[in-house]
Protein backbone atom coordinates (compact mmCIF):
# COMPACT_ATOMS: atom_id res chain seq x y z
CA UNK A 1 0.00 0.00 0.00
CA UNK A 2 1.44 3.40 -0.89
CA UNK A 3 0.83 6.05 1.71
CA UNK A 4 0.98 9.82 1.52
CA UNK A 5 2.62 11.49 4.51
CA UNK A 6 2.61 14.96 2.93
CA UNK A 7 0.83 17.72 4.80
CA UNK A 8 -0.17 21.22 3.77
CA UNK A 9 0.03 23.58 6.68
CA UNK A 10 -0.98 27.23 6.39
CA UNK A 11 0.78 27.72 3.08
CA UNK A 12 3.70 25.40 3.79
CA UNK A 13 4.19 22.04 2.15
CA UNK A 14 5.70 19.50 4.55
CA UNK A 15 6.94 16.13 3.27
CA UNK A 16 5.74 14.59 6.50
CA UNK A 17 4.10 15.89 9.67
CA UNK A 18 7.12 15.27 11.94
CA UNK A 19 8.81 18.47 13.06
CA UNK A 20 11.06 19.15 16.03
CA UNK A 21 9.97 21.35 18.96
CA UNK A 22 11.64 24.61 19.86
CA UNK A 23 14.32 24.34 22.54
CA UNK A 24 14.71 20.59 22.21
CA UNK A 25 16.66 20.42 18.96
CA UNK A 26 19.13 23.28 19.39
CA UNK A 27 19.47 25.17 16.13
CA UNK A 28 19.11 21.87 14.26
CA UNK A 29 22.79 21.53 13.41
CA UNK A 30 23.55 19.81 16.72
CA UNK A 31 21.49 16.84 15.55
CA UNK A 32 22.91 16.60 12.02
CA UNK A 33 25.34 13.77 12.97
CA UNK A 34 22.36 11.59 13.92
CA UNK A 35 20.12 11.77 10.86
CA UNK A 36 19.34 13.61 7.65
CA UNK A 37 17.81 16.95 8.61
CA UNK A 38 16.17 17.03 5.17
CA UNK A 39 14.06 14.00 6.08
CA UNK A 40 12.14 15.95 8.72
CA UNK A 41 8.85 17.69 8.06
CA UNK A 42 10.22 20.85 9.63
CA UNK A 43 12.66 22.17 12.20
CA UNK A 44 11.62 24.71 14.82
CA UNK A 45 14.72 26.32 16.28
CA UNK A 46 15.46 27.43 19.84
CA UNK A 47 13.45 30.51 20.84
CA UNK A 48 15.09 33.64 19.43
CA UNK A 49 15.11 37.11 20.92
CA UNK A 50 16.30 40.41 19.43
CA UNK A 51 19.41 40.45 21.61
CA UNK A 52 21.29 37.38 22.89
CA UNK A 53 19.95 36.14 26.23
CA UNK A 54 22.00 34.60 29.03
CA UNK A 55 19.22 32.43 30.45
CA UNK A 56 18.63 31.29 34.01
CA UNK A 57 21.19 30.07 36.57
CA UNK A 58 22.03 26.38 37.15
CA UNK A 59 20.54 23.92 37.86
CA UNK A 60 18.11 24.43 35.00
CA UNK A 61 16.85 20.92 34.39
CA UNK A 62 15.50 18.13 36.58
CA UNK A 63 14.22 14.69 35.73
CA UNK A 64 10.71 13.68 36.80
CA UNK A 65 8.75 10.45 36.34
CA UNK A 66 8.30 10.07 32.55
CA UNK A 67 9.28 13.68 32.07
CA UNK A 68 11.50 16.59 32.95
CA UNK A 69 11.37 20.13 34.25
CA UNK A 70 13.28 22.92 32.59
CA UNK A 71 13.94 26.53 33.41
CA UNK A 72 16.44 27.38 30.69
CA UNK A 73 15.16 30.95 30.58
CA UNK A 74 15.37 31.28 26.80
CA UNK A 75 19.13 31.39 26.52
CA UNK A 76 19.83 32.07 22.86
CA UNK A 77 22.37 33.62 20.55
CA UNK A 78 20.08 36.43 19.39
CA UNK A 79 18.41 36.78 16.02
CA UNK A 80 21.36 38.38 14.21
CA UNK A 81 23.78 35.56 15.10
CA UNK A 82 21.13 33.01 14.15
CA UNK A 83 20.62 34.54 10.72
CA UNK A 84 24.37 34.97 10.16
CA UNK A 85 25.84 31.76 11.63
CA UNK A 86 23.15 29.10 11.83
CA UNK A 87 20.47 29.54 9.18
CA UNK A 88 22.81 29.42 6.15
CA UNK A 89 24.08 26.01 7.33
CA UNK A 90 20.59 24.54 7.67
CA UNK A 91 18.95 22.77 4.69
CA UNK A 92 16.25 25.44 4.42
CA UNK A 93 15.59 24.77 0.74
CA UNK A 94 14.59 21.18 1.51
CA UNK A 95 13.02 21.44 4.96
CA UNK A 96 11.06 24.37 6.37
CA UNK A 97 12.96 26.12 9.14
CA UNK A 98 10.64 27.78 11.62
CA UNK A 99 11.83 30.61 13.87
CA UNK A 100 10.42 30.58 17.40
CA UNK A 101 10.12 34.13 18.76
CA UNK A 102 10.39 35.46 22.27
CA UNK A 103 10.22 39.10 23.35
CA UNK A 104 9.30 41.10 26.42
CA UNK A 105 6.55 43.26 24.90
CA UNK A 106 4.39 43.56 21.80
CA UNK A 107 6.64 46.16 20.11
CA UNK A 108 9.69 43.99 20.54
CA UNK A 109 7.78 40.94 19.23
CA UNK A 110 6.77 42.97 16.19
CA UNK A 111 10.33 44.19 15.60
CA UNK A 112 11.64 40.63 15.82
CA UNK A 113 8.95 39.49 13.40
CA UNK A 114 10.05 42.25 11.02
CA UNK A 115 13.67 41.06 11.08
CA UNK A 116 12.72 37.41 10.61
CA UNK A 117 10.14 38.02 7.91
CA UNK A 118 12.84 39.60 5.77
CA UNK A 119 15.09 36.56 6.14
CA UNK A 120 15.19 34.16 3.25
CA UNK A 121 15.20 30.63 4.57
CA UNK A 122 12.80 31.25 7.44
CA UNK A 123 9.59 29.46 6.45
CA UNK A 124 7.31 30.52 9.31
CA UNK A 125 7.28 32.36 12.62
CA UNK A 126 6.17 30.59 15.79
CA UNK A 127 5.29 33.09 18.49
CA UNK A 128 6.02 31.86 22.00
CA UNK A 129 3.43 33.51 24.23
CA UNK A 130 3.65 30.67 26.68
CA UNK A 131 7.11 30.36 28.22
CA UNK A 132 6.79 29.77 31.97
CA UNK A 133 10.47 30.48 32.65
CA UNK A 134 10.91 34.19 32.14
CA UNK A 135 9.69 37.07 34.26
CA UNK A 136 8.79 39.61 31.58
CA UNK A 137 6.49 38.62 28.74
CA UNK A 138 6.32 34.89 28.23
CA UNK A 139 3.33 33.28 29.74
CA UNK A 140 1.57 36.50 30.74
CA UNK A 141 0.72 37.06 27.06
CA UNK A 142 -0.63 33.56 26.72
CA UNK A 143 -2.98 33.68 29.69
CA UNK A 144 -5.09 36.66 28.64
CA UNK A 145 -7.14 36.33 25.43
CA UNK A 146 -7.14 40.08 24.74
CA UNK A 147 -3.34 40.29 25.09
CA UNK A 148 -2.81 37.16 23.01
CA UNK A 149 -5.00 38.61 20.26
CA UNK A 150 -3.26 42.00 20.26
CA UNK A 151 0.17 40.43 20.24
CA UNK A 152 -0.72 38.14 17.34
CA UNK A 153 -2.01 41.14 15.40
CA UNK A 154 1.18 43.09 16.05
CA UNK A 155 3.35 40.20 14.87
CA UNK A 156 1.14 39.46 11.87
CA UNK A 157 1.40 43.08 10.69
CA UNK A 158 5.18 42.80 10.46
CA UNK A 159 5.43 39.20 9.30
CA UNK A 160 5.00 39.95 5.58
CA UNK A 161 4.04 36.79 3.75
CA UNK A 162 5.46 34.47 6.42
CA UNK A 163 2.85 32.34 8.16
CA UNK A 164 2.48 33.11 11.87
CA UNK A 165 1.93 30.28 14.32
CA UNK A 166 0.98 31.08 17.90
CA UNK A 167 2.18 28.66 20.55
CA UNK A 168 -0.36 28.17 23.32
CA UNK A 169 0.12 27.46 26.99
CA UNK A 170 -1.75 24.71 28.83
CA UNK A 171 -1.41 26.77 32.03
CA UNK A 172 -4.77 28.47 31.57
CA UNK A 173 -8.32 27.85 32.66
CA UNK A 174 -9.66 27.72 29.12
CA UNK A 175 -7.26 27.15 26.25
CA UNK A 176 -10.02 27.57 23.68
CA UNK A 177 -10.52 31.26 24.52
CA UNK A 178 -6.84 31.98 23.91
CA UNK A 179 -6.87 29.91 20.72
CA UNK A 180 -9.88 31.84 19.37
CA UNK A 181 -8.28 35.17 20.25
CA UNK A 182 -5.05 34.24 18.47
CA UNK A 183 -6.97 33.18 15.35
CA UNK A 184 -8.99 36.41 15.42
CA UNK A 185 -5.68 38.26 15.71
CA UNK A 186 -4.60 36.62 12.45
CA UNK A 187 -2.73 33.47 13.50
CA UNK A 188 -2.29 31.16 10.52
CA UNK A 189 -1.80 28.12 12.78
CA UNK A 190 -1.67 27.26 16.47
CA UNK A 191 1.01 25.21 18.19
CA UNK A 192 -0.38 23.33 21.12
CA UNK A 193 1.12 22.97 23.84
CA UNK A 194 4.05 24.51 25.63
CA UNK A 195 5.20 23.06 28.98
CA UNK A 196 3.08 22.80 32.13
CA UNK A 197 4.38 24.67 35.15
CA UNK A 198 5.79 22.31 37.73
CA UNK A 199 8.21 21.97 40.59
CA UNK A 200 10.54 19.43 42.20
CA UNK A 201 12.29 19.54 45.59
CA UNK A 202 15.03 17.58 47.34
CA UNK A 203 14.11 16.40 50.85
CA UNK A 204 17.77 15.99 51.86
CA UNK A 205 19.21 19.34 50.83
CA UNK A 206 15.77 20.95 51.41
CA UNK A 207 16.27 22.85 48.19
CA UNK A 208 14.28 23.15 45.01
CA UNK A 209 15.78 21.09 42.21
CA UNK A 210 15.75 24.10 39.88
CA UNK A 211 17.51 27.36 40.72
CA UNK A 212 14.41 29.10 39.35
CA UNK A 213 12.29 26.99 41.78
CA UNK A 214 9.55 26.37 39.20
CA UNK A 215 9.93 25.25 35.62
CA UNK A 216 8.18 23.72 32.64
CA UNK A 217 7.16 20.08 32.67
CA UNK A 218 7.51 18.16 29.41
CA UNK A 219 7.89 14.62 28.11
CA UNK A 220 5.63 11.55 27.96
CA UNK A 221 4.10 12.59 31.32
CA UNK A 222 2.24 15.47 29.65
CA UNK A 223 0.94 13.65 26.58
CA UNK A 224 -2.63 13.20 27.88
CA UNK A 225 -2.85 16.92 28.66
CA UNK A 226 -1.52 17.81 25.21
CA UNK A 227 -3.95 15.43 23.55
CA UNK A 228 -6.86 16.98 25.42
CA UNK A 229 -5.76 20.54 24.53
CA UNK A 230 -5.24 19.70 20.85
CA UNK A 231 -8.62 18.02 20.66
CA UNK A 232 -10.41 20.94 22.33
CA UNK A 233 -8.70 23.53 20.13
CA UNK A 234 -9.31 21.54 16.94
CA UNK A 235 -13.02 21.40 17.79
CA UNK A 236 -13.15 25.16 18.31
CA UNK A 237 -11.11 26.78 15.55
CA UNK A 238 -10.61 26.15 11.85
CA UNK A 239 -6.93 27.16 11.80
CA UNK A 240 -4.59 24.18 11.58
CA UNK A 241 -3.13 22.91 14.84
CA UNK A 242 0.41 21.65 15.34
CA UNK A 243 0.52 19.23 18.24
CA UNK A 244 3.38 19.01 20.73
CA UNK A 245 3.64 17.41 24.15
CA UNK A 246 5.11 14.04 25.03
CA UNK A 247 5.18 12.61 21.52
CA UNK A 248 7.74 9.81 21.35
CA UNK A 249 6.56 7.34 18.71
CA UNK A 250 4.86 7.11 15.32
CA UNK A 251 1.79 5.81 17.19
CA UNK A 252 1.71 9.02 19.22
CA UNK A 253 1.85 11.04 15.98
CA UNK A 254 -1.26 9.29 14.68
CA UNK A 255 -3.09 9.84 17.98
CA UNK A 256 -2.67 13.58 17.56
CA UNK A 257 -3.66 13.52 13.88
CA UNK A 258 -6.71 11.47 14.84
CA UNK A 259 -7.92 14.21 17.19
CA UNK A 260 -7.40 16.84 14.50
CA UNK A 261 -3.76 17.98 14.37
CA UNK A 262 -2.18 18.81 11.00
CA UNK A 263 1.36 18.17 12.13
CA UNK A 264 3.35 17.39 15.27
CA UNK A 265 6.55 18.41 16.98
CA UNK A 266 8.93 16.08 18.82
CA UNK A 267 10.37 17.70 21.95
CA UNK A 268 11.76 15.98 25.03
CA UNK A 269 11.86 12.65 23.15
CA UNK A 270 14.84 14.07 21.22
CA UNK A 271 16.75 13.75 24.49
CA UNK A 272 15.85 10.05 24.84
CA UNK A 273 17.96 9.49 21.74
CA UNK A 274 19.22 12.10 19.31
CA UNK A 275 17.89 10.24 16.26
CA UNK A 276 14.34 10.01 17.69
CA UNK A 277 12.64 12.50 15.34
CA UNK A 278 14.31 10.88 12.33
CA UNK A 279 13.15 7.42 13.49
CA UNK A 280 9.59 8.57 14.00
CA UNK A 281 9.46 10.21 10.54
CA UNK A 282 10.91 7.07 9.01
CA UNK A 283 8.52 4.69 10.76
CA UNK A 284 5.33 6.63 10.10
CA UNK A 285 4.66 5.34 6.54
CA UNK A 286 4.95 1.69 7.61
CA UNK A 287 2.64 2.29 10.56
CA UNK A 288 0.11 4.05 8.32
CA UNK A 289 0.29 1.17 5.85
CA UNK A 290 -0.20 -1.38 8.61
CA UNK A 291 -3.31 0.49 9.77
CA UNK A 292 -4.65 0.97 6.24
CA UNK A 293 -4.29 4.77 6.34
CA UNK A 294 -3.31 6.01 2.89
CA UNK A 295 -3.37 9.74 3.59
CA UNK A 296 -3.13 11.86 6.69
CA UNK A 297 -5.69 14.29 5.25
CA UNK A 298 -8.26 11.49 5.17
CA UNK A 299 -7.36 10.26 8.67
CA UNK A 300 -7.25 13.67 10.34
CA UNK A 301 -9.97 14.38 12.89
CA UNK A 302 -11.79 11.10 12.35
CA UNK A 303 -12.07 10.25 16.05
CA UNK A 304 -15.48 8.70 16.59
CA UNK A 305 -17.37 8.54 19.83
Amino acid sequence: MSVDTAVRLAGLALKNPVMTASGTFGYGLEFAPYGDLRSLGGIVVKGLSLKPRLGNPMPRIAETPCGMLNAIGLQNCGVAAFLRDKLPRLPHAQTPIVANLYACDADEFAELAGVLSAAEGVAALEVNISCPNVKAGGIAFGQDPAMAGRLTEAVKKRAGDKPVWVKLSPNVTGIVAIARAAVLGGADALTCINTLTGMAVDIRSRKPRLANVIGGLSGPAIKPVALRCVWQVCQAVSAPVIAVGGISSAEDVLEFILVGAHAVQIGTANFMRPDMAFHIAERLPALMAALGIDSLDAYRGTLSR
Partner: protein
Amino acid sequence: MGKSGACRDVRLLSVAPVGPEGAAYGCYLLEVENPGFEPAVAGQFVMVRPLRFGQNPVWPRPFSLCRLTEEKLTLFVQACGRGTDILCGLSAGDVVTVWGPLGQGFALEPEIPTLLLAGGVGLAPFVEYVATHPAPSNLSLLFGHRQPLSCYPFAEMAVRIGRAEAFEERSPADLPAFIERLDAAVAGHADGLVLACGPRPFLLTVARLARKYSARAQVSLENRMACGVGGCLGCVEKNALGAYVQTCTEGPVFWVEELALAEEA
Protein backbone atom coordinates in the same frame (compact mmCIF):
# COMPACT_ATOMS: atom_id res chain seq x y z
CA MET B 1 39.69 15.11 18.58
CA GLY B 2 37.68 11.99 17.78
CA LYS B 3 34.57 13.02 15.91
CA SER B 4 31.03 12.30 17.07
CA GLY B 5 29.89 8.86 16.07
CA ALA B 6 26.37 7.85 15.33
CA CYS B 7 23.74 6.74 17.79
CA ARG B 8 23.53 2.95 17.87
CA ASP B 9 21.76 0.18 19.72
CA VAL B 10 24.45 -2.23 20.87
CA ARG B 11 24.63 -5.34 22.99
CA LEU B 12 26.04 -5.36 26.45
CA LEU B 13 28.94 -7.81 26.50
CA SER B 14 29.35 -7.96 30.27
CA VAL B 15 28.53 -6.28 33.55
CA ALA B 16 30.88 -7.13 36.39
CA PRO B 17 31.57 -5.67 39.81
CA VAL B 18 35.14 -4.41 40.24
CA GLY B 19 37.10 -6.47 42.77
CA PRO B 20 35.72 -8.62 45.53
CA GLU B 21 33.89 -5.71 47.19
CA GLY B 22 32.70 -3.92 44.03
CA ALA B 23 29.15 -5.26 44.20
CA ALA B 24 28.75 -4.18 47.83
CA TYR B 25 29.91 -0.67 46.97
CA GLY B 26 28.15 -0.39 43.61
CA CYS B 27 31.29 -0.20 41.46
CA TYR B 28 30.91 -1.94 38.08
CA LEU B 29 32.63 -2.27 34.74
CA LEU B 30 30.26 -2.42 31.79
CA GLU B 31 31.47 -3.58 28.42
CA VAL B 32 29.50 -2.96 25.24
CA GLU B 33 30.24 -3.65 21.60
CA ASN B 34 32.08 -0.71 20.07
CA PRO B 35 29.15 1.23 18.55
CA GLY B 36 31.32 2.22 15.57
CA PHE B 37 33.40 4.83 17.36
CA GLU B 38 36.68 5.95 15.88
CA PRO B 39 39.59 6.45 18.26
CA ALA B 40 38.58 9.05 20.82
CA VAL B 41 40.31 11.38 23.23
CA ALA B 42 40.43 10.47 26.93
CA GLY B 43 38.02 12.72 28.80
CA GLN B 44 35.34 12.49 26.13
CA PHE B 45 32.12 10.81 27.17
CA VAL B 46 29.19 8.83 25.86
CA MET B 47 25.47 8.94 26.51
CA VAL B 48 23.96 5.59 27.44
CA ARG B 49 20.30 4.62 27.61
CA PRO B 50 19.25 1.01 28.06
CA LEU B 51 16.07 0.01 26.23
CA ARG B 52 14.96 -1.11 29.69
CA PHE B 53 14.45 2.56 30.67
CA GLY B 54 11.31 2.64 28.52
CA GLN B 55 9.75 6.04 29.24
CA ASN B 56 11.13 6.30 32.76
CA PRO B 57 13.83 7.45 33.34
CA VAL B 58 13.52 9.75 30.37
CA TRP B 59 17.13 10.89 30.03
CA PRO B 60 20.12 8.85 29.06
CA ARG B 61 23.09 8.95 31.45
CA PRO B 62 26.54 10.38 30.65
CA PHE B 63 29.67 8.31 31.34
CA SER B 64 33.32 8.94 30.61
CA LEU B 65 34.87 6.78 28.03
CA CYS B 66 36.87 4.53 30.39
CA ARG B 67 38.43 2.41 27.66
CA LEU B 68 37.80 2.17 23.94
CA THR B 69 39.25 -0.49 21.66
CA GLU B 70 38.21 -1.55 18.18
CA GLU B 71 36.06 -4.31 19.68
CA LYS B 72 34.53 -2.77 22.75
CA LEU B 73 33.75 0.24 24.85
CA THR B 74 34.24 -0.09 28.60
CA LEU B 75 32.52 2.12 31.17
CA PHE B 76 33.25 2.34 34.87
CA VAL B 77 29.93 3.00 36.56
CA GLN B 78 29.13 3.73 40.16
CA ALA B 79 25.53 2.85 41.02
CA CYS B 80 24.19 5.91 42.84
CA GLY B 81 20.60 6.34 41.71
CA ARG B 82 17.79 4.90 39.67
CA GLY B 83 19.49 5.12 36.26
CA THR B 84 22.84 3.69 37.29
CA ASP B 85 21.09 1.05 39.44
CA ILE B 86 19.20 -0.17 36.36
CA LEU B 87 22.35 -0.07 34.23
CA CYS B 88 24.44 -2.07 36.70
CA GLY B 89 21.61 -4.59 37.05
CA LEU B 90 21.58 -5.38 33.31
CA SER B 91 23.01 -8.62 31.91
CA ALA B 92 25.11 -9.53 28.91
CA GLY B 93 22.94 -9.46 25.79
CA ASP B 94 20.72 -6.60 26.97
CA VAL B 95 20.51 -3.75 24.46
CA VAL B 96 21.65 -0.22 25.24
CA THR B 97 21.55 2.86 23.03
CA VAL B 98 24.90 4.64 22.97
CA TRP B 99 26.01 7.85 21.28
CA GLY B 100 29.33 9.61 21.22
CA PRO B 101 32.20 10.09 21.71
CA LEU B 102 31.04 13.49 22.87
CA GLY B 103 32.64 16.70 24.05
CA GLN B 104 36.24 17.79 24.44
CA GLY B 105 38.80 15.51 26.06
CA PHE B 106 41.93 16.17 28.11
CA ALA B 107 45.02 17.85 26.67
CA LEU B 108 47.80 15.47 25.73
CA GLU B 109 51.35 16.82 25.96
CA PRO B 110 53.43 13.64 26.03
CA GLU B 111 56.75 15.31 26.90
CA ILE B 112 55.37 17.38 29.78
CA PRO B 113 55.18 15.98 33.32
CA THR B 114 51.46 15.49 33.79
CA LEU B 115 49.63 15.11 37.08
CA LEU B 116 46.35 13.21 37.07
CA LEU B 117 44.07 14.05 40.00
CA ALA B 118 41.10 11.74 40.40
CA GLY B 119 38.33 11.68 42.97
CA GLY B 120 36.25 8.49 43.23
CA VAL B 121 34.53 7.59 39.98
CA GLY B 122 36.51 10.46 38.42
CA LEU B 123 39.21 7.85 37.89
CA ALA B 124 37.32 6.55 34.84
CA PRO B 125 38.66 8.85 32.07
CA PHE B 126 42.22 8.41 33.30
CA VAL B 127 42.10 4.69 32.55
CA GLU B 128 41.95 5.59 28.84
CA TYR B 129 44.40 8.45 29.31
CA VAL B 130 47.03 6.19 30.86
CA ALA B 131 46.41 3.34 28.41
CA THR B 132 46.88 5.57 25.35
CA HIS B 133 49.59 7.94 26.61
CA PRO B 134 52.77 7.60 24.53
CA ALA B 135 55.14 8.37 27.47
CA PRO B 136 53.46 7.05 30.62
CA SER B 137 56.62 7.58 32.66
CA ASN B 138 55.75 11.30 32.52
CA LEU B 139 52.46 10.64 34.33
CA SER B 140 51.75 10.84 38.06
CA LEU B 141 48.41 9.99 39.63
CA LEU B 142 46.94 11.03 42.94
CA PHE B 143 43.67 9.25 43.61
CA GLY B 144 41.32 10.10 46.46
CA HIS B 145 38.70 7.46 47.24
CA ARG B 146 36.13 6.52 49.86
CA GLN B 147 35.35 2.95 48.80
CA PRO B 148 38.01 0.22 49.21
CA LEU B 149 40.76 0.61 46.60
CA SER B 150 39.98 -2.78 45.06
CA CYS B 151 36.62 -1.35 43.92
CA TYR B 152 38.41 0.84 41.37
CA PRO B 153 40.41 -0.06 38.25
CA PHE B 154 43.46 1.48 39.94
CA ALA B 155 46.05 -1.29 40.10
CA GLU B 156 46.44 -1.80 36.33
CA MET B 157 46.90 1.95 35.80
CA ALA B 158 49.39 2.30 38.61
CA VAL B 159 51.83 -0.19 37.10
CA ARG B 160 52.01 1.67 33.79
CA ILE B 161 52.87 5.13 35.05
CA GLY B 162 55.71 6.96 36.74
CA ARG B 163 54.10 7.43 40.12
CA ALA B 164 50.69 6.54 41.54
CA GLU B 165 49.33 7.21 44.98
CA ALA B 166 45.97 6.38 46.46
CA PHE B 167 44.56 8.23 49.46
CA GLU B 168 41.65 6.68 51.31
CA GLU B 169 39.29 9.15 52.92
CA ARG B 170 37.66 7.12 55.69
CA SER B 171 35.88 10.07 57.28
CA PRO B 172 35.49 13.80 56.68
CA ALA B 173 38.30 14.29 59.22
CA ASP B 174 40.72 12.92 56.61
CA LEU B 175 39.90 15.71 54.15
CA PRO B 176 42.50 18.27 55.30
CA ALA B 177 45.27 15.69 54.92
CA PHE B 178 44.08 14.89 51.39
CA ILE B 179 43.98 18.58 50.49
CA GLU B 180 47.53 18.88 51.81
CA ARG B 181 48.58 16.03 49.49
CA LEU B 182 46.82 17.73 46.59
CA ASP B 183 48.57 20.98 47.42
CA ALA B 184 52.00 19.34 47.38
CA ALA B 185 51.25 17.47 44.15
CA VAL B 186 50.07 20.61 42.31
CA ALA B 187 53.04 22.57 43.68
CA GLY B 188 55.29 19.89 42.19
CA HIS B 189 53.65 20.37 38.78
CA ALA B 190 53.64 24.16 38.64
CA ASP B 191 55.52 23.94 35.33
CA GLY B 192 53.70 20.86 34.12
CA LEU B 193 50.14 19.95 33.31
CA VAL B 194 47.43 19.14 35.85
CA LEU B 195 44.30 17.21 34.85
CA ALA B 196 41.45 16.58 37.28
CA CYS B 197 38.18 14.67 37.35
CA GLY B 198 35.98 14.07 40.36
CA PRO B 199 33.21 15.57 42.48
CA ARG B 200 32.63 19.31 42.26
CA PRO B 201 34.12 20.27 45.65
CA PHE B 202 37.26 18.38 44.67
CA LEU B 203 37.46 20.27 41.36
CA LEU B 204 37.00 23.59 43.15
CA THR B 205 39.97 22.74 45.36
CA VAL B 206 42.06 21.81 42.33
CA ALA B 207 41.09 25.06 40.62
CA ARG B 208 42.13 27.04 43.70
CA LEU B 209 45.47 25.23 43.92
CA ALA B 210 46.12 25.68 40.21
CA ARG B 211 45.69 29.41 40.69
CA LYS B 212 47.86 29.39 43.77
CA TYR B 213 50.78 27.77 41.89
CA SER B 214 49.99 29.21 38.45
CA ALA B 215 49.79 25.65 37.15
CA ARG B 216 48.17 24.90 33.80
CA ALA B 217 45.17 22.82 34.79
CA GLN B 218 42.10 21.26 33.25
CA VAL B 219 39.02 20.02 35.09
CA SER B 220 36.28 17.70 33.84
CA LEU B 221 32.80 18.73 34.98
CA GLU B 222 29.95 16.34 35.73
CA ASN B 223 27.03 18.66 35.13
CA ARG B 224 23.53 17.29 34.80
CA MET B 225 22.82 16.52 31.13
CA ALA B 226 19.66 15.73 29.22
CA CYS B 227 20.78 15.43 25.59
CA GLY B 228 24.59 15.40 25.62
CA VAL B 229 24.75 16.93 22.14
CA GLY B 230 24.14 20.64 22.68
CA GLY B 231 20.40 20.62 22.09
CA CYS B 232 18.84 21.44 25.46
CA LEU B 233 21.10 24.05 27.13
CA GLY B 234 20.59 22.25 30.42
CA CYS B 235 24.23 21.47 31.19
CA VAL B 236 25.69 24.96 31.18
CA GLU B 237 28.45 26.37 33.37
CA LYS B 238 29.40 30.04 33.91
CA ASN B 239 32.61 30.94 32.17
CA ALA B 240 35.15 33.57 33.18
CA LEU B 241 33.36 36.17 31.05
CA GLY B 242 30.07 35.61 32.87
CA ALA B 243 28.46 33.82 29.92
CA TYR B 244 27.18 30.26 29.95
CA VAL B 245 29.11 27.55 28.14
CA GLN B 246 27.70 24.13 27.32
CA THR B 247 29.42 21.40 29.28
CA CYS B 248 28.48 18.67 26.83
CA THR B 249 29.94 20.26 23.71
CA GLU B 250 32.45 22.86 24.94
CA GLY B 251 33.48 20.64 27.87
CA PRO B 252 33.28 18.49 29.91
CA VAL B 253 37.02 19.27 30.09
CA PHE B 254 37.82 22.96 30.50
CA TRP B 255 40.97 24.88 31.29
CA VAL B 256 40.50 26.17 34.82
CA GLU B 257 40.93 29.81 33.84
CA GLU B 258 38.09 29.53 31.31
CA LEU B 259 35.56 29.01 34.08
CA ALA B 260 34.26 31.09 36.95
CA LEU B 261 34.79 28.03 39.20
CA ALA B 262 37.80 29.37 41.07
CA GLU B 263 35.75 32.24 42.48
CA GLU B 264 33.39 29.80 44.18
CA ALA B 265 36.22 27.90 45.91
